[in-house]
């Protein structure tokens, strides 16, 4: 697999509510190679502080060599990034890691929590190439409407059914996204989950119980994204060793990793 380090021009920046931003980057090589669930490592500035690149899922690729990232301000790096303006260049490394694979089952559930929805749009497009829209459902959860409102519309316009849950009830059902999963009755299904660890743990548990396939995209702190620093470990399900999120993941079968 080819990895590229590109100076990517920021062609467009969009600010959504809830401190969420979408950047469209001109990175043709990365756009050509990227697959849903893969990520890029981005420098958030030119100086040495903050030092490390930050990982972001490929949110979408689009015509003209565009790579989009969708991110939320949570600290200094994302703060700096959010202030960049179109016309500037970002140093982007990618595509990295193992993405989602097309589940064998006939029903596909895309489950995203908060900013975890980032890679699901790309995944949905990919799945639509091989599946009927009716075979794909999108389940989104967030604290409040702000965080997922726009994206919910994007999925809707692709002809997909979207179910939402918000903790404050401002969009969809009041509660957690996992609440939406529990009542579903399917014998053969694949769940693609992306979001905070506690949510993924519940998703993995539900899938295990129901006997569904379950792919989850995990996050850890990363230094290199290249399988070189060995810093991005999570415990294997056999508890006997570690997998590396940047190389073996970020997407794992839920039964590959330990849920602590």
């Amino acid at each position, binding site marked *: 697999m080819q990895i590229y*380090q590109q100076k990517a021009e920021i062609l467009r920046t969009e600010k959504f509510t809830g401190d969420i931003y979408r950047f469209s980057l001109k990175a043709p090589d990365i756009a050509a190679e990227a697959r849903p669930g893969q990520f890029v490592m981005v420098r958030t500035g030119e100086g040495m502080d*903050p*030092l490390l690149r930050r990982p972001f899922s490929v949110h979408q690729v689009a015509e003209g060599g565009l790579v989009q990232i969708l991110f939320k301000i949570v600290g200094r790096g994302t703060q700096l990034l959010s202030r960049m303006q179109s016309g500037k260049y970002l140093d982007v490394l990618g595509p990295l890691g193992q993405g989602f694979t097309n589940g064998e089952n006939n029903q596909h559930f895309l489950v995203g929590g908060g900013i975890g929805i980032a890679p699901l749009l790309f995944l949905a497009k990919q799945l639509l190439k091989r599946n009927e829209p009716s075979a794909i459902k999108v389940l989104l959860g967030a604290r409040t409407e702000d965080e997922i409102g726009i994206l919910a519309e994007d999925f809707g316009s692709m002809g997909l059914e979207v179910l939402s849950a918000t903790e404050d009830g401002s969009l969809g059902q009041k509660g957690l996204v996992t609440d939406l999963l529990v009542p579903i009755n399917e014998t053969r299904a694949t769940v693609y989950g992306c979001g905070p660890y506690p949510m993924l743990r519940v998703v993995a548990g539900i899938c295990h119980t129901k006997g569904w396939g379950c792919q989850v995209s995990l996050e*850890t702190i990363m230094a290199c994204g290249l399988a*070189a*620093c060995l810093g991005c*470990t*999570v415990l294997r399900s056999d508890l006997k060793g*570690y997998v590396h999120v940047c190389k073996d993941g970020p997407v794992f079968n839920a039964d590959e990793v330990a849920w602590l």
Partner: protein
Amino acid sequence: MAVELPDLKINIGALRLNNPVMTASGTFGYGKEFASLVNLHRLGAIIVKGISLLPRPGNPPPRLAETACGMLNAIGLENVGLEKFLSDKLPFLLGIDTPLIVNILGDTLEDYQQLAARLDEEEKVAALEVNISCPNVKHGGVAFGTDPDMAYNVTKGVRQHFSRPVIVKLSPNVTDIVMIAGAVEEAGADAVSLINTVLGMAIDIEFCRPKLANIFGGLSGPAIKPIALRMVWQVADAVAIPVIGIGGISTPEDAVEFMLAGASAVQVGTANFINPKATEEIIQGLETYLTEKNMASVQELIGRARRT
């Protein structure tokens, strides 16, 4: 008129390198990880992740934390172990026309000796770099590199079992690094490389606990450059063998600083994470610097700031 390019070649004892820029152990995987980003043939040498006799799983996560102009790691020396290195990693490196240096680590003197003996059989292994920052399990876990006698013994053991150059990599977590350097020189090291990471830590004030599961970790990156440079200067003053500078080197200017301080070569570590093309850019930049300064060879840089 043909413009003469400056000569970047340097020697580390019997080891001849096309240029003085190597990759620091643990920051460049086993080389292959960077194959699509760096022209591996262009590097002075490739130093791979530290290898132990048996595979090691490493420390539990979190293993990383970012700090001001630096990072902490507590990888815990995770590695595939000697056998898997030979069977899975070496074949790719055989195809790269760049000297390969294997970084080794052990729990005991015997570990180091066995590693040296086995790697001596592999012609491709141009040199060993001996990581003595590891705890000596037979000595209550005190790091080999913090005691001159233990450092002497490890070096001697490796020296006796390996026929090509032996580089000993020094720990900065000592009162007097010159004393350790002197001990390993006396034990027959062909070169010393320094510095390994500086012991540090960080605390998560939200969760009220250390950011690293291991509590302590090794600090690397630009933050430690002044410390590394000082130690290179001190050691280059005191030993006759070549010194390889490591610590925060991210730009050609950084590499020049270390060579002016007395280093014969440099290693690029954390910078590989931030800019995977750092090594190539440094090689290119060294050439430019020498050209601008009208110097014919990179060797003219070595220790130059100590002579004025």
